[in-house]
């Protein structure tokens, strides 16, 4: 049967139209708007000037929030990796009959409402939360220690949200490694640890780096955890955008901050794609 050349385009056209009209065009609008002026009356005036960007970099306040975002993102990536590699390795190695169920359990949080998962930490970290309750009951402390509304609490919420992504990415990479490679290394005299370090670990790095990128990018755009679990000083860039656009209705400035965030992520993802290839991430996401 001979394929007609127009057929795939017919099938693609609704999706392409939707993405073009509702995503590409609006994002271009954000860039255009970021050069506009805001009149004292609150009206937006079409213009081409860099005032909004100059305002962002005028003092340390806004760049501080940007740096704060990047720092939290790096910390989250590091902790996700620390917490995620071992379980992924466990799934790779285990021969338990329970493996499919255990993996399903890791996937389960994907299905649980993000806002519920985020606020659930209040029950753990709050003044009358689980940790303070247990510590006070055991007599170790007499008044609750403040665990909530700081960067640590924000990172807890972020980890809860992002850890499954990391575990999945690493597992997909590990799963593609022939187990006999490590066996061969061992039969040639390597210890278990050496075989892991010299053979399995290097081969799993594509999954590790894909997981790191995904966690980093998703953290950079995060709004909810700092909002619910953070204090006044824990705002991240997304919170700033929301405040400027919905709070003070400063569309041009809000657009400029959005454009800065987007540009930053594009640079990171582009650089990553140059060296590692982005498809690894999509591969593991489609397993979810």
């Amino acid at each position: 049967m001979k394929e007609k050349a127009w057929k795939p385009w017919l099938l693609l056209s609704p999706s392409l139209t939707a993405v073009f009209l509702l995503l590409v065009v609006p994002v271009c609008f954000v860039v255009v708007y970021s050069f506009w002026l805001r009149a004292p009356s609150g009206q937006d005036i079409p213009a081409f000037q860099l005032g909004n960007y100059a305002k962002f970099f005028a003092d340390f306040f806004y760049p501080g929030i940007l740096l704060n975002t990047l720092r939290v993102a790096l910390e989250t990536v590091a902790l996700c990796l620390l917490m995620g590699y071992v379980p992924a390795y466990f799934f790779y190695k285990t021969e338990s009959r329970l493996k499919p169920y255990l993996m399903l359990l890791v996937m389960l949080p994907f299905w649980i409402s993000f806002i519920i998962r985020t606020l659930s930490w209040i029950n753990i970290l709050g003044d009358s939360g689980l940790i303070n309750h247990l510590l006070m009951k055991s007599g170790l402390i007499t008044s609750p220690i403040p665990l909530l509304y700081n960067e640590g609490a924000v990172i807890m919420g972020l980890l809860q949200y992002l850890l499954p992504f990391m575990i999945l990415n690493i597992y997909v990479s590990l799963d593609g490694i022939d187990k006999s490679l490590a066996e061969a290394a061992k039969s040639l005299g390597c210890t278990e640890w050496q075989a892991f370090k010299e053979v399995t670990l290097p081969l799993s790095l594509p999954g590790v780096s894909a997981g790191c990128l995904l966690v980093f990018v998703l953290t950079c755009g995060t709004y909810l955890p700092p909002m619910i679990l953070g204090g006044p000083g824990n705002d991240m860039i997304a919170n700033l955008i929301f405040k400027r656009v919905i709070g003070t209705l400063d569309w041009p400035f809000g657009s400029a901050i959005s454009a800065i965030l987007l540009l930053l992520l594009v640079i990171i993802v582009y650089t990553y794609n140059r060296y590692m290839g982005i498809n690894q991430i999509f591969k593991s996401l489609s397993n979810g």
Partner: protein
Amino acid sequence: MKSFFSGWTLIKLYTLMVYVWMFTPIVAVVILAFNPQQFGSFPMEGFSFKWFVKLSHNSTILDAFQNSMVLGTLTAVLTTSIGVPAALAFIRYEFKGKEFLNTLLIAPIMIPEVVLGVALLLFIRWLQQPKSFVLLLIGHVVLTLPYVLLIVQARLVGIKREYEEAALSLGANPFQTFREVTFPLLAPAIFAGMLFSFTISFDDVTATLFWATAQNQTVPVKIFGMLRNSISPEINALGAVMIVLTVSIPLAAGWLSRRFARGVGPS
């Protein structure tokens, strides 16, 4: 061998601890939902359904729930009906720029929701349209499309062209072939796509906060508003309901689709 054994035990313990860490807060929400005490926190002082009862009389939450269901269902139908053909195009055909277009359609996963929120709202503003349910709906379609594409493509890879060709060569016309062969084979992929887009839409907060008006608030947006005051036992009860709902849907779906696959799929 001895050292491997203890290493493996450590790995198992570590994994167990990660599980405990991951599920303690979720379990705590469910347990505290039954705490009759006023502040929705530890210690437990008995066991009661009173917060669930109170919840069932809260009309604003019931309204939000209805909004979420309608929005999620429409999003699922719309996204799947544009996403499945696109996935078919990518899996079944060779054409110029395929890789690029595939990346273009999936890349929005990487765009922060705040930016999507601002962008679409700005566009609507420029068109001088008010915020409305339609804005929420098209927003959610854009939000869920990449995920549907990923999931459906992954499922479609397994469906071989040969089945259809066999039907055609045995005398079925193209419509019969689609009805009897292609559609039953596609059904699990379509189902998975709908389920996924429904869940993402039902769950979304950040972008929805930009697009929702007071009239069409969804459940997560409503919860977000309630949190402003402080965490109440009612939120825990609502959380418990949401957890049970959203966890049972994919489990039931997984079970259904396995039955589906056994009934009609190639084995």
